């Protein structure tokens, strides 16, 4: 049985889609069988970020409405054989996602893949709650900036109440992925400190992804950043994050600082 991950944030534009593609590709590059599912119905973008936009035949809504079989809607990556994409619909809206339909699709994907990564839409409405519904693990994508942290807090609340795990009295595993971290602004003291964000949200840190041109370049050519340039700083940070996701106890380095810090911060368990 595969694990279901939701990549979520509340706030828009913080790097969910970029991270879904990069983490999915990184896992697949290590030989794991991965599917990334675009839940942003009506505004799909994961296909573009992964460079599969010209090959979309059917989408999640087609599958849920019974117009296509799941196997027909899955798009296999041309570079990494074990990486697949299930695109969202561009022309229909979120109302076409039914809870029963989503449940069936996720169950089928879980039995065929090691990892099912759900790229959530922004917001706290239906699309976002359906994307998190069946998750075993949540990756909360946050920028070191006040409104993003506030929205992440809100999303953590939803994860603890609206997911199936929460409803069954189980604990959903939550991780913080701090993205678009700008070492220069941090140096000048104009950015929230990593420790501050961790203290406020009090969920363990999965990684820190630096703000980088490499991310833009990767999305221009249509490749997850771990594939576009595997040695770039953001790619390395995503590779490390996947190792932590698999349980490895790797220290987190703050971009721009040599000192690595682990100890009480990374080790802290969710409250």
């Amino acid at each position, binding site marked *: 049985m595969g694990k279901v991950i939701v990549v979520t944030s509340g706030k828009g534009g913080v790097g969910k889609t970029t991270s879904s593609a990069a983490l999915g590709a990184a896992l697949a590059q290590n030989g794991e069988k991965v599917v990334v599912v675009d839940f942003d119905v009506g505004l799909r973008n994961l296909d573009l970020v992964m460079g599969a936009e*010209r090959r*979309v*035949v059917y989408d999640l809504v087609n599958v849920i409405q019974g117009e296509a079989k799941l196997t027909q809607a899955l798009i296999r990556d041309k570079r990494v054989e074990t990486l697949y994409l299930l695109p969202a619909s561009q022309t229909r809206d979120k109302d076409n996602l039914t809870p029963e339909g989503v449940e069936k699709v996720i169950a089928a994907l879980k039995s065929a893949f090691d990892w099912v990564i759900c790229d959530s839409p922004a917001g706290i409405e239906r699309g976002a709650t359906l994307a998190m519904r069946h998750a075993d693990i949540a990756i909360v994508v946050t920028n070191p900036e006040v409104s993003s942290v506030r929205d992440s807090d809100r999303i953590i609340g939803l994860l603890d109440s609206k997911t199936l795990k929460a409803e069954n009295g189980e604990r959903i595993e939550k991780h913080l992925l701090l993205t678009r971290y700008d070492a220069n602004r941090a140096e000048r003291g104009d950015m929230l400190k990593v420790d501050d964000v961790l203290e406020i949200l009090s969920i363990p840190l999965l990684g820190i992804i630096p703000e980088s041109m490499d991310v*833009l*370049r990767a999305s*221009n050519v249509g490749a997850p950043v771990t594939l576009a340039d595997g040695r770039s700083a953001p790619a390395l940070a995503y590779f490390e994050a996947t190792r932590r996701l698999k349980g490895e106890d790797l220290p987190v380095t703050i971009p721009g600082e040599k000192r690595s810090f682990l100890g009480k911060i990374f080790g802290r368990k969710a409250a």
Partner: protein
Amino acid sequence: MKLFGFFSRGQSAPAARERLQVLLAHERASTGDIDLVNKLRDEILKAISKHMQVDDEKVSIKMERGAQVSTLAVDIEIPFDAGKKAA
């Protein structure tokens, strides 16, 4: 594959521009529900199902939308006794 050429270095913006042009041309054309590739896909499947019981799992459909031409590949497994079962 052509894409890999872009990874080597140089500018990535031209690739972004070209990809967007092709994608948007197709998306704009399909808002009026006249996306030819989609229509062909559906009609081909309909035609097939007239002659045999179509097992969706045995039908694989691939598309590649290009600037000048698009390709549609429909791959169907037809069982030996398919013709008899129809009608």
